[in-house]
């Protein structure tokens, strides 16, 4: 007996609300759990002081700086290169064997576990190039790690721009580069941005690769060649070693707040761009 389509729809939608509800509430639970345990005793000193006594006391200022440093450096390297690669692949090359190989390679590398990038970074950047356990080793490793993701998501976003837009642009007499910057990129910007924000999140939360390339020193990094510890790594060490659960929770809360800030900033930026540049 076939149910009338509208009833099928109602059942399906109800089912999906349940699924979504479960999924989202689990995700919300995680944030609430961390905030509940970590926010109450958070203080300004915690954010601005250096850690003492293995991290049992003091604050996490060096970790905040290290995280910002490594992430910003890594993204600055990876974003322009990734975006340029994506533009070149979609706009300047034909669909062909080479392009498919490159796309395939980028997909594979986007899926390679971060620990392997860490392995590579450790052997290549830290030892072979002699950069040592340092911020720059970490940043370069992270840049390589997020590069495939940025290329792929940017490429998907650019490809999703309907061909019609490009044809209209050419029909109006634009050059290729004008077409790209004034028509294609503005439409693709939300997707590109999603890729970059996802990558930023991945950089901030990366633990294994960072541990092996940037090290885990407790002090403030004064140059790109100093070793330091990121927030995620600090949280991991604090919670696993059982050194200080209180501080671990607080570190995790700061981490999540930082990600929140990045995402809010990204969305604000995107809204401004979309209202000004979007062609659709």
């Amino acid at each position: 007996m076939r149910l009338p389509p509208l009833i099928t729809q109602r059942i399906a939608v109800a089912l999906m609300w349940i699924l979504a509800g479960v999924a989202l509430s689990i995700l919300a639970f995680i944030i609430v759990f961390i905030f509940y345990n970590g926010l109450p005793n958070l203080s300004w000193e915690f954010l601005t002081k250096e850690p003492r006594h293995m991290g049992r006391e003091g604050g996490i200022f060096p970790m905040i700086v290290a995280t910002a440093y490594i992430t910003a450096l890594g993204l600055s390297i990876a974003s322009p290169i990734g975006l340029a690669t994506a533009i070149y692949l979609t706009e300047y090359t034909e669909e062909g064997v080479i392009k498919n190989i490159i796309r395939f390679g980028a997909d594979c590398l986007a899926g390679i576990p971060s620990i392997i990038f860490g392995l590579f970074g450790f052997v290549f950047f830290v030892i072979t190039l002699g950069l040592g356990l340092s911020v720059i080793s970490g940043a370069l490793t992270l840049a390589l790690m997020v590069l495939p993701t940025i290329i792929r998501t940017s490429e998907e976003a650019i490809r999703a721009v309907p061909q019609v837009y490009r044809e209209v642009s050419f029909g109006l007499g634009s050059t290729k580069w004008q077409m790209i910057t004034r028509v294609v990129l503005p439409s693709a910007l939300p997707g590109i941005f999603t890729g970059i924000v996802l990558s930023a999140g991945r950089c901030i939360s990366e633990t294994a690769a960072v541990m092996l390339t940037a090290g885990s020193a407790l002090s403030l990094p004064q140059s790109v060649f100093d070793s330091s510890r990121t927030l995620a790594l600090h949280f991991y060490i604090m919670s696993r070693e059982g050194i200080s659960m209180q501080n671990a929770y607080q570190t995790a809360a700061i981490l999540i707040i930082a990600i929140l800030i990045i995402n809010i900033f990204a969305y604000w930026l995107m809204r401004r761009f979309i209202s000004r540049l979007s062609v659709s």
Partner: protein
Amino acid sequence: MKTDKIISWILLLMALTAICGLALITIFIFKEGLPILVKVGPVKFIFSMDWYPSEGEFGIFSMIVGSLAVTCGALIIGIIFGIGCAILLAQFCPPRLVSILKPLVELLAGIPSVVYGFIGVVVLVPLIRDYLGGPGLSVLASSIVLGIMVLPTIISISIDAIRSVPGAYREGSIALGATEWQTMCMLTLKAARSGIVAAIILGMGRAIGETMAVIMVAGNTLDLPQSILDPVRTLTSNIALEMGYAAGTHRQALFATGVILFIIIMILNSIALVVSKHGIKSRKIL
């Protein structure tokens, strides 16, 4: 016109830099890992269950089974909940709610894996141990934690894929008398297939590659898991646990594990490619 040429050269240069960098990693991993794969013999390496590096025995079969088991479990959860969520948010949810929920989902993609692992250890593992038996550190715990971790990835990219299907398709279908749900099932999902498959592949890649969270909740034994309540070790946990200590042959064996992981991911992506090619073809026809 001249600027166009210059710009295209600059773009080519940057693209080549990217490709060279990524090729470098690939070559490096294979260069380090292949020698020992050849020395031990690929069949013995992959199918032997004896991993005793200090005695020179390298067999990763238990770890391969571990990775596959945990990833399958994670994908089941990820696909059911993730695509359901994506369909909901892309189509059936009021826009105001979507503008809150979608950013929330993307925010959650950024939460560190160690936080997920930590909550798994503190909340999930004791629950499994007390109510379902076993040590708590298990395939089940890893699957659940990983499934939750890949949710934001699958949801985000699937939503983008579904939304990128041109509105005209949907409007045409509604005009022909189909309900929203019928349109979704029979038209939109198929048109968005390549994007959704990409989302699942990326999610699967993330699940296979997840290291820290799995180390915390999987138990990391060397034995084959007999049930989902048994502890397990994955390929990535193996590398992470032993990396800092490994030297010489041992380190090469870990690179060889990396080679195996690389090949697994290549196989997965090939499958994805074949599936999405059908999707693109059918879209072109439409």
